[in-house]
């Protein structure tokens, strides 16, 4: 199993290298001029962004800055007013199978009649198709994904009985079941316990090591430097993007949060040296 997935990864990288030499054009996710508006007030305005492979990127910004909106608009979950999205150099419609999305766990009703394994299997629905039957291999795959997030013992548990952290792990397992190359997560660490945060970051780092692209909407500035390689700072418009080492600076944070961050708070963060 592990061997096979390793081969697939190599093949995918070879494919990219052959298809498109331009790093931006073949990036796992690139958006150009994306604007989203609720009514007349833009939530995301004319944003360009490129999210690299084999790296973890944090999307950072204050509440209402359009972090989640940018993700959803890139995925086509909410309509764009303008802008283009390309996934591995292709239009998103043809590359959907390579994307896994993890929505905010508060966005669904957890009293829904489903067990943990039912939810993980949802990640395979596209592959099963309308008339297909669920195979033993697919069930085993779902169980393996649950094991990766440390939830094997919970497979038959009703989802309403899970804690917040466990709900988040189930959502991550569902995304893993898709075997995607690009992972988009909306606040995966919001309101989870410390053990879950560690379990999630371990999984995300292993995805990164496999050459996948991981993009998280993130709210905890204290962990940015330890968890992520790249940052994308947004407050309706793009403020800055780039490696944590050069972009996660006090000046950029001030520009993003508009002075809403206390100076003492900024001092405590492991910030990059503005070189």
């Amino acid at each position, binding site marked *: 199993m592990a061997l096979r997935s390793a081969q697939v990864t190599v093949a995918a990288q070879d494919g990219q290298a052959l298809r498109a030499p331009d790093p931006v054009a073949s990036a796992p996710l690139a958006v150009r001029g994306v604007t989203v508006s609720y009514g007349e007030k833009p939530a995301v305005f004319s944003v360009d962004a490129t999210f690299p492979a084999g790296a973890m990127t944090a999307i950072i910004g204050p509440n209402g800055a359009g972090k989640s909106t940018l993700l*959803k608009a890139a*995925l*086509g*979950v909410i309509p764009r007013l303008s802008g283009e999205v390309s996934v591995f150099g292709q239009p998103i*419609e043809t590359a*959907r199978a390579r*994307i896994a*999305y993890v*929505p905010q766990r508060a*966005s*669904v*009703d957890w009293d*829904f*009649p*489903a*067990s943990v394994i*039912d*939810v993980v299997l*949802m990640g395979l*629905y*596209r592959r*099963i198709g*309308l*008339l297909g039957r669920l195979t033993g291999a697919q069930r085993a795959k779902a169980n393996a994904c649950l094991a990766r997030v440390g939830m094997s013992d919970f497979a038959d548990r*009703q989802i309403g009985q899970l804690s917040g*952290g466990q709900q988040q792990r189930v959502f991550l397992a*569902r995304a893993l079941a898709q075997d995607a190359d690009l992972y*988009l997560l909306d606040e995966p660490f919001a309101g989870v*316990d*410390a*053990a*879950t945060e560690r379990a999630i970051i371990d999984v995300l780092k292993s995805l990164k090591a496999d050459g996948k692209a991981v993009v998280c909407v993130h709210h905890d500035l204290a962990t940015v430097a330890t968890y992520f390689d790249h940052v994308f700072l947004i407050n309706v418009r793009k403020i800055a993007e780039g490696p944590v080492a050069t972009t996660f600076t006090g000046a950029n944070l001030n520009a993003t949060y508009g002075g809403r961050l206390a100076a003492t708070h900024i001092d405590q963060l492991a910030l990059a040296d503005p070189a």
Partner: protein
Amino acid sequence: MNPFLDALALNAGYNAALVGIGAAMLGFAAGAAGTFLFLRKRALVSDAVAHATLPGVGLAFILMVALGGDGRNLIGLLLGSAATAGIGLLLVEWIARRTRLSEDAAIGAVLSVFFGFGIVLLTVVQTMSAGRQAGLEGFLLGSTAGMLFQDAVVIAVGGALAVFATWLLRRPMTLVAFDPDYAAALGYNVRRIDLAMMGLVMAVTVIGLKLVGLILIVAMLIIPPVTARFWTESSAYVIWYAGLIGGVSGYVGAALSTTAPAMPTGPIIVLVAASLFLMSLFVAPARGVAAAVIRHRRFQRRVHRRQGLLALSRAEPIHDDFTLRVLRGEGLIRPDGVATANGRALAAKTARDEHRWDIAREIHQDAGLTGRYDGLTPIEQVFTPDEIAEFDRRIGGPRALGSSLGGTA
């Protein structure tokens, strides 16, 4: 034999048998097709769709008479009702999506306007000289008196198609009901799936018009899945349980309505379904009211038992009557309130486990593990024996006593 049993055994005459079978099939189709409406929390849209069938009935009648045909041709009337129901459905969807009005306002507007227009058309129809208009008002509350074989065939074919489509679309509809954003990210067209779901509901509404009537068909779409939800935690099972509950309600309701002359079939079916719902509300395992009360009582007992044992271990007097009853009931104290040997042993273990938990929280800062401390979960279920031995080592004192008690408890 009694007329109700006759009807259940299909021995109450041709018409009664036809009505019974038709109602059972309709009930099954409505319950299954209504499942995702309920899971998507859009039950009331079906009310707007049902009321929007009425103008179609009137328009179809007028059109067929004008063309020189039979105004009461069932297929024609059903096609007409489906047409205006479809327009009503699209209007609700359009208003909710394109204007600032919410869906409930859209439902209210469409429901009342279409129903009002339908009543006006029926009044016009009554004044027409041509065509045999008698019986059209039966579409409001349903009528079984004139049920024909042809009507049963319409229900059987339409119902079977609706159930098949529900089964076919169960995965996309489950996904859209549970997590529409994720469904959209996977590439499913959420709007089209929602429309398909509402289309199924519309189909069942139209074929059920003649038997149950447009006002009560909503109950047959919603009550069975709501009832089924009490009995299962899996959306796939909700479909079939809801179908079964709907089918039984239809069959039993139709049989009951034959026991007295002029009993309205549709309302009786709805009452049977509602009584199944009430029964489930109380007796269902896990989700039922009775189960919740029992769970609460058990929990209360465990809390009192622990408090009582801790009081015994500290040799404090116990005044709470319920605590005393619990301890006495388990033979942990004598009727005069003095602890028995068994009671003293358990009290010592309870006190020791409290102490162990204190140590456990010091050692394991992991909230996932120590978060399970509620004073009620036995420590042996959370930690392994070697971990507990480590706690005891830190506590010190007479370890032999503690571990031997742990073995007997």
